[in-house]
């Protein structure tokens, strides 16, 4: 019956565990057939969120292929790709970190407080007016704001804003 340890079966994952401390890969291979809507995928070297997956066949009695529609998580551009279902795709490593917003500088940078008390001052404000005003307005109202920074494949951007009450 059952006996052998799952560890052996999952040794590959285990491997990533150990080696993942600092230099985590930017992308990981994953079988196209297992990628779901709402997941991530690299299309044309851009990290994308998958908004649509459909499958079809190469010829009636051929093999399955996946058709992905993705949206670039930074630029918002729509990208598409077709990959044989059993082949691997690149899946981007997407990280999101929360910081407290300390200041918005005149020259378009934000000043952030990290968890361990350091500051991070190298992040630019978004250029989109709408996003900009959402951040600036909240800050101007004197709310305590936590911003979520999404980073992937060497790029980063503010992706969410959270009001944690009036500034203490």
């Amino acid at each position, binding site marked *: 019956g*059952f006996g052998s340890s799952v560890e052996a079966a999952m040794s590959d994952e285990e491997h990533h*565990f150990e080696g*993942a401390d600092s230099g985590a890969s930017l992308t990981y291979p994953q079988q196209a057939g297992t990628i779901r809507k709402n997941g991530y995928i690299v299309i044309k070297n851009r990290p994308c969120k998958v908004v649509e997956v459909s499958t079809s066949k190469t010829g009636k*009695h051929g093999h399955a292929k996946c058709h992905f529609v993705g949206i670039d998580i930074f630029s918002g551009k729509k990208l598409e790709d077709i990959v044989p279902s059993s082949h691997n795709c690149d899946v981007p490593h997407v990280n999101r970190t929360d910081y407290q917003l300390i200041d918005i500088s005149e020259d378009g940078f934000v000043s952030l407080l990290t968890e361990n008390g350091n500051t991070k001052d190298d992040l630019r404000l978004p250029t989109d007016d709408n*996003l900009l005003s959402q951040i600036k307005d909240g800050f101007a109202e004197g709310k305590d704001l936590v911003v979520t920074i*999404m980073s992937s494949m060497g790029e980063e951007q503010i992706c*969410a804003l*959270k*009001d944690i009450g009036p500034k203490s």
Partner: protein
Amino acid sequence: MQRSPNDLSQLQATMRAIEVACSSIQMMVNRAEAEATILSLCQSPQPYQACQYILENSQMPNARFQAATAIRDAAIRDYCLCYVMQRASSPEGYVQAKVSAAAAQLMKRGWLEFSAAEKETFLSEVKQATLGIHGADVQFIGIKLMESLVSEFSLSTSTAMGLPAEFHDQCQKSMELEYLKTFYCWARDAASSVTNKILDSDSPVPETKVCTAALRLMLQILNWDFRYSKNGLESAKGKKNVFSAQVGNDNNLSRRSECTIVQPGPVWHDVLISSGHIGWLLSFYGALRQKFSCEGFWLDCPLAVSARKLIVQFCSLKGNIFHSDIGQMQENHLLQLLSGIMQWINPPDEVSKAIESGKSESEMLDGCRALLSIATVTTPVVFDQLLKSISPFGTLTLLSALMCEVLKVLMVRNAEEETWSWVARDLLLDTWTALLVSIESGGETGLLPAVGRNAASNVFSLIVESELKAASASAFSDDMASDYFQASASAMDERLSSYALIGRASIDITIPLLTNLFNERVARLHQGRGITDPTVTLEELYSMLLIIGHVLADEGEGETPLVPKAIQTQHVASGESEKHPVVVLSSSILNFAKQSLDSEMRASIFSPRLMEAITWFLARWSSTYLMPSEETGESNSGSCYDNNHMVQSSVSSKAFLIFGEHNQGKSVLDLVVHIATTTLVSYPGEKDLQALTCYHLLHALVRRRNVCVHLVGLDSWRRLANAFANERLLFTLYSAHQRSLAQTLVVSASGIKNPEASNQYVRDLMCHMTNYLMELSSKNDLKIVAHQPDVILLVSCLLERLRGAARATEPRMQKAIYEMGSTVMNSILIFLEVYKHEFAVVYLLLKFVVDWVDGQIIYLEAQETAGVVNFCMRLLQLYSSHNIGKISLSISSSLLSEAKTEKYKDLRALLQLLANLCSKDLVDFSSDSPETPGTNISQVVYFGLCIVIPLISLDLLKYPKLCHDFFSLLSHLLEVYPEMVAQLNDEAFSHVLGTLDFGLHHQDMEVVDMCLRALKALASYHYKETTVGKVGLGTRAAGSKDQNGQMSEGIFGRFLRTLLHLVLFEDYSTDLVSAAADALLPLILCEQSLYQRLGNELIERQVNPAFKSRLANALQCLTSSNQLSFTLDRMNYQRFRKNLINFLVEVRGFLRTIKILVLFPVLFVCKSVLQTSRIQDPGRILFEKIYPKQVK
């Protein structure tokens, strides 16, 4: 309008005369004379000016009323009727059509008020017209006017008039019982009055138009939804049920073609049957056909089309219009029709040849429609006999010949677009279906007559041939639509079901045929292996598997399907079980499928698409034939058949036991499991195929307990379970498929006899997964590794598997599944924190908990419950702390809308979780005695709801499902635990009330209903408590002072106002009145003085003294009539419902009107005047006179 030199004085005189007459009537003096005066106004040729003058100048309401009536009557008479009659020859048909529709509408509006004499006057003009006295043009208009009337009076085609449904019903009834037959006769007479002219003339004559219109009207009348005259005495309702039952039966196999059954009832016998009417119609059409035989286009001219439609319609005549003479009269009727129709479709080969060489197909198609109609109203035996009396062959033989001819044409053409042969094939297939479905459903008749079975098998072999041909032709087409198995199968499903019925009609011929064709193709594949491209043969096999699957077995739709009756009951001369044709065919396919286990064969033959068909077939076939539970098989075959059939059926059933548990069943099951495993393991990335395996095949196997018993004993099954638990390979399946697989494997444990062993089976299956999740969650570097895509994938897969297992909870395995969940509770909270930005994982976490709690909660003991509830609350708090006040930022609007949808899905899951917790209070299987101090579920759920409510924005409530879930939970809570409302903190309390208020004004009726139920519960709780001296909702109900010392009203006062306003002034469905009454009664009782005050205010606001007193009376009745008392029992609620309905009927009309009048006086008047006189120019003129300023 014509301006006569009429002076003012004459108008004044008329006005005065009318005023005098009106007051005489009022005072009951000189009544006759007064009536005559008024009548003279109505009947005067041009009353408009006088009426207009009276309307503008008279001070007397009665006189104005009479003037308005006179205008209306005159409008109908002069304007519409005369207009159309006088302009009969005008070429603008659409103007006439519009005007006659307007006339019909006006007639209908006044229909129930007109006296019989008034209607008579109007109709006699119509009759005169249709008789043709004033020439063909007027005759045509007269018929058209009747057409408009009939369509206006028929419920399905009537125009909305803003009048109650009852009005329309009464009009329909009046039309059906008093006039419809008369109209039919007029139309018939009109048609026959012009036939000679049409037949004698060599050039088109205007009478053709008359005749066509008359035939159309007759058709329209036969299409009437007869309700009242079907049966002299029987109530319309009872009859209707009989009819709808029949429709339900037909729906078993959904039809492509429409075929309505015509049941006008016995009163129509003389007109339609005994008058020789049909003979006339047939010979008229025959004569025309003869006359125009050289002009091909003639078949499609309106006259020919309407004549044929009428003939086809006559074929669907049914019911007690025929006397009860064991169907002889109906048979004669059908025979008469059929002998006329024969020349349209017989001989089939010549007919089809003529169409192929350019003749119009419409007559042939109508012939097919007629056959379909006849098949629908008869049994197969009668159907076949019909033709025998006039020809050497029966109707079934003709049907078969016709179908074969059509299929041949289809095969030659092989056209993609819809050609006549497509349409004809579908019509004829439906005809077969209509005939065979009565046999299949065990209806009145037994088997098809022998000649019919022959015919059916001929047709079936051609069907298979044509499908194979179509398959091979499309093998290389890269048609996206047909690529996906499910889609193509369901698109074909209707057609395949019809094929199956035909195929099953003579299994001794058709099934061996299928076996031969199948084996031929398999042999061809083997011979050509590695030499020729197999694609064409693969596609043919694919198509054959679909056909065979349909012929052999029915779709279970969740139930265990039995061997189709046609197969079970047919006698097959085979002797041994192994030689039963069904067994032979099944074995051929199983043997073929077995070859897919060999990797070389797989690579060269078993394409993913072919495997899809095999998997689908195995699922369908297994549900019916594999290990049938013996008891049910016998009891079923015995119960519904007579002795003769029982013997035969037991022969067949015995043959099928070859796949039973004590025979080959086990080895076949083993084979099926092997094949299923192969599709999962050896077809990487073939999601569609694997979906079929997981959702169809494996689910079908574990659906039956007796199969599970054998499954868990099979090595192949154990290997699958082992691979699932321990091997990496199955992690490459699509994660939702893994969920399904986990569920299937856990369900199979129900086949283990010993419950402890079942639990151990589940533990062994799942423990490595839970261990892995626990280990991962305790890693120090979790925060870093967790976001690696490979880790996310693995965690997602494991959560899906856990969820699948949770969904398989049964009492037998409940313990192991509880342990599985409780060991990972802590890890789940850790993952929720770590993955707070990763929607995909958060959602899986929530869904797992939802499903796990759903399965477990009712079994849990007090201590376990406490643990689970505590865990759920921590989960909710954690989720809330991550998400409250969070705004997603993105330049991509589609990413933002994705984020919103994700939030919606999360919240819906949280609401489901709360609802699942609630069920503990309703159903509890734990061994705790009721006295054991347990968790206070209500408190917990309220607490949970207070966490969730702030996360739900009004924007999110636009998702209908979320909105529905939210309000059903809210109303459930308020209904079951109203006392909790008193304990809510201020913020939560105002949230709850705010949402209730929002819900009351929601457009979804169900939401409003749920809010009303909640209100009822709250108010009745408070009232009952306070009447026995308790506080009830205390300060919440009494109202309170806010910071500024302003007194704010208590909740019941607020809702009493809201609800009163709603029922009196707002738009809502009348279905809600009862629910509103149930909420209103306790609210009134809670706030009696406020209610009095509101009532008085309402009365005071009325300016019109008549309305004032009516309203006062109505309010009085609302709370006092029907012996309404101050208690809240069922009886009293019932009484109040009645009172409220009466109250609303009495006052809502004028209350609302007045409100509108106050707000938009001009609009209102505009609307009402225009409504009553849409086309009627006098009305418009009148309106412009009265309100000249507003118009400008």
